Structures are given as structure tokens and as C-alpha cells.
């Protein structure tokens, strides 16, 4: 463990971040190149390796900056868990308001997707419950039996 700690110290002084605490380079490259090819399909723009490092670093620092700001917003509201609205307020604070509109749209889609997933898993649970109810009923009993009891009580 001491070796790792030494590495960490070195990391602080040498300005090096371990790979697991960075964004995957291949993915950053893909995001950058996909966007560029979207713009001009004629000219092929290439990205130097050190520029890719620059993009990775920039994204990493953006994550820290945005999340720290969202965290401040969250704490100001005396809450513990950062939520979507905290992030939107943070974006405005750091002057990236142009991201808010597209993000609200994708958040809606994200919510719908999750709602659909939830309803699907609920259905799956219900069908498995029905399967279990074919066995001898427990104290609850099925609805029809209760009705019969009520009618006999009359």
C-alpha cells in the first residue's frame, strides 16, 4: 500500500492522474470526431495525441467544476443529494446556460425511459405473483371465497 501512496504523492507533484480517474481516451476521441464529422463531411480534421490529452483533461476538469458547483447549490438548499435542478442551476452559474435546453429535453426522455422500465418490471413481478397464487392460498385467500363467506353470513 505504501507504494501506492508514494505513487499518489508523485501524482500530485507531477500533475498526473491515474487512468481510472480519467475519461477513457477512445470515448473522448469518438465524441470529438463524431461531432467534427457531423459538421463538415468533406474535410477530415485530425486530432493530435497531445490535443486529445487536452480534450480529456478539459472534460475531467469540467466534471469537477460542474459537480462542485451543483454540490454548492444542493448544500445551499440544505439537502444531501444532488438532483437534476441543482445541475441546471449550476450550469447557469458557470455560464453554460446554452446547455440547459437540450439537457432538459434529454432528461425528459431519460425519465420516460426509466418510467417504462419500472412499469415493465412491475408487470414482470405481477405475472410471477399470479403464478405463485395457483398454490394453496394463505390466510388472505382469494376474493371469491370471501364473497361466499359474506353471503353465507347474511
Amino acid at each position, binding site marked *: 500500500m505504501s507504494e501506492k501512496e508514494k505513487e499518489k504523492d508523485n501524482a*500530485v507533484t507531477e*500533475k498526473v*492522474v491515474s487512468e*481510472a*480517474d480519467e*475519461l*477513457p481516451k477512445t*470515448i*473522448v476521441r*469518438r*465524441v*470529438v470526431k*463524431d*461531432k*467534427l464529422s457531423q*459538421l463538415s463531411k468533406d*474535410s*477530415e*480534421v*485530425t*486530432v*493530435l495525441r*497531445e*490535443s486529445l*490529452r*487536452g*480534450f480529456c*483533461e*478539459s*472534460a*475531467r*476538469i*469540467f*466534471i*469537477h*467544476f*460542474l*459537480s*462542485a*458547483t*451543483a*454540490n454548492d447549490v444542493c448544500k445551499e438548499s440544505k439537502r*444531501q443529494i*444532488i*438532483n*437534476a435542478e*441543482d*445541475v441546471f442551476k449550476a450550469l447557469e452559474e*458557470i*455560464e*453554460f446556460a446554452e*446547455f440547459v435546453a437540450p*439537457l432538459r429535453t*434529454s*432528461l425528459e*426522455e*431519460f425519465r*420516460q*425511459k426509466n418510467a*417504462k422500465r419500472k412499469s415493465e418490471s412491475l408487470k414482470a413481478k405481477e405475472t410471477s405473483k399470479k403464478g405463485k397464487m395457483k398454490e394453496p392460498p394463505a390466510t388472505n385467500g382469494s376474493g371469491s371465497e370471501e364473497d361466499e363467506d359474506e353471503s353465507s353470513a347474511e
Partner: protein
Amino acid sequence: MAEQEPENAITESVQLEIPTGRVKRIMKLDKDINKVNSEALFLITHATELFLQSLAVKSAGVALEKKRKTIKLEHLRVAVKRHQPTSDFLLDSLPMPAQSLDQQKDRAKSRSNKKPVPVGARRIDAFFQKFT
């Protein structure tokens, strides 16, 4: 209703390239941050992608200005400088190009002569020195 929709329609529009798990890991390096809900994590990840895309476009623009088809670190630096909100939090933290030491010394000199940051601007240098 929506049940008839093929799942592809929904998944295509909300396709994130950056893995949220990695973003969460990076966020958690900040001891001040306790918990983040899944929506917020999704938004931060998506915002980072938007940021990368915006930075890519601006950097490519700088490269094209200089009649180049290759984005160099210097082009990225210029793009960052030109966009005030990005410059505020990023300019000092960009990695240095692997160029001549003389150029690096010149940059170090020009940095010490930089204008003071306007009142009220977030100073987070100390924060980043923790990680860099």
C-alpha cells in the same frame, strides 16, 4: 399507447458515449460531494459530452483559421481563451504542449503578468491543485 413503441426509438435519443460510472468515480474524488441521484449523474455526463463537442468545434475552427486540418494543443488553448466561461475555469489547467522549453518559459512569464480576475469570479485553483 407508448407500449407499442420499439425500444430503439427511446434508447437512440438518450445514447450517452461517456460511461456514467466513470463520471461518478471522478466526481467522488471530491470529498465534499456526498450523493448524487441518477438524473443528476445523467445530466452531468451529458453536459460533459456537450462541453466536449463545443470545445471540439471551437478548436477545429481555430485550426481552420490557421489553414490546418490537424487540431494542435495550441488551437485548443486559443479556443479556450476565446470563450470566457471556459477560460475562467480551464485556461490555467490545460496541459502544456511538448514544445521547446523556451516557449514554455515565455508562457510562464506571460502568465505572471495576467490581468486580475474580476470581482465575484469563482477562484477554484486551489481546488484543482488537489487533483492535478
